[in-house]
């Protein structure tokens, strides 16, 4: 369990750096959705199922869709 936790936190840090370095905004949104999903699993490990539900629904689902809607109205490349 400890090993899985460490792997997930490292994945989180890599995701956070990749979102900032990506030039393609659509790819950045998809990486951000993966960040939200891993964050939901980490909330579950921290014994906070309420926050995990909210993060999985809002952070990984609705936020990504709203960002994609905004990108479709503006430009895709940074």
């Amino acid at each position: 369990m400890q090993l899985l936790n460490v792997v997930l936190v490292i994945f989180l840090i890599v995701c956070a750096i990749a979102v900032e370095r990506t030039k393609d905004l659509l790819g950045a949104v998809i990486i951000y959705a993966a960040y939200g999903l891993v964050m939901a699993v980490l909330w579950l490990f921290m014994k906070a199922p309420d926050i995990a539900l909210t993060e999985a629904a809002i952070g990984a689902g609705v936020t990504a869709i709203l960002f994609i809607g905004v990108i479709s109205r503006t430009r895709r490349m940074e």
Partner: protein
Amino acid sequence: MDDLIVKTITRIIIPFIQVYGIYIVLHGHISPGGGFSGGAILGASLILYTLAFGYKDAAKKMPHHVGAILESGAILWFLALGLIGIFAGGNFLTNRDAGFYMGNLSMLFNAGLIPLVTLGIGAKVASTMITLFHTIIEED
């Protein structure tokens, strides 16, 4: 987008998502969940409908004025529940002393104020999600 497979799968799966969202909202005071997560799931099901069937059909199911009524109505409902506590002689948002129905522990309708407030928050969050998405993708 005009795809038969996406439309059929969406038509089958949306009732299950909505039942799960309503379950999370109604059981907010018993099991993990509550207004914000359940409302987000309900809003996500309506967003899925918009993605599969296009904006024109979704605007017929969920017009803007219904969203506006839900938004304003939910927050006024919340504040009215708080004012009941003041009229009963307590503080703003008093629960037990204001005479709300308490019921038995771990039955669905107990705990007075809490399920009513959770219902209001759920309606508010769901309508916020769907109104924001419709406003952003709306074509001229």
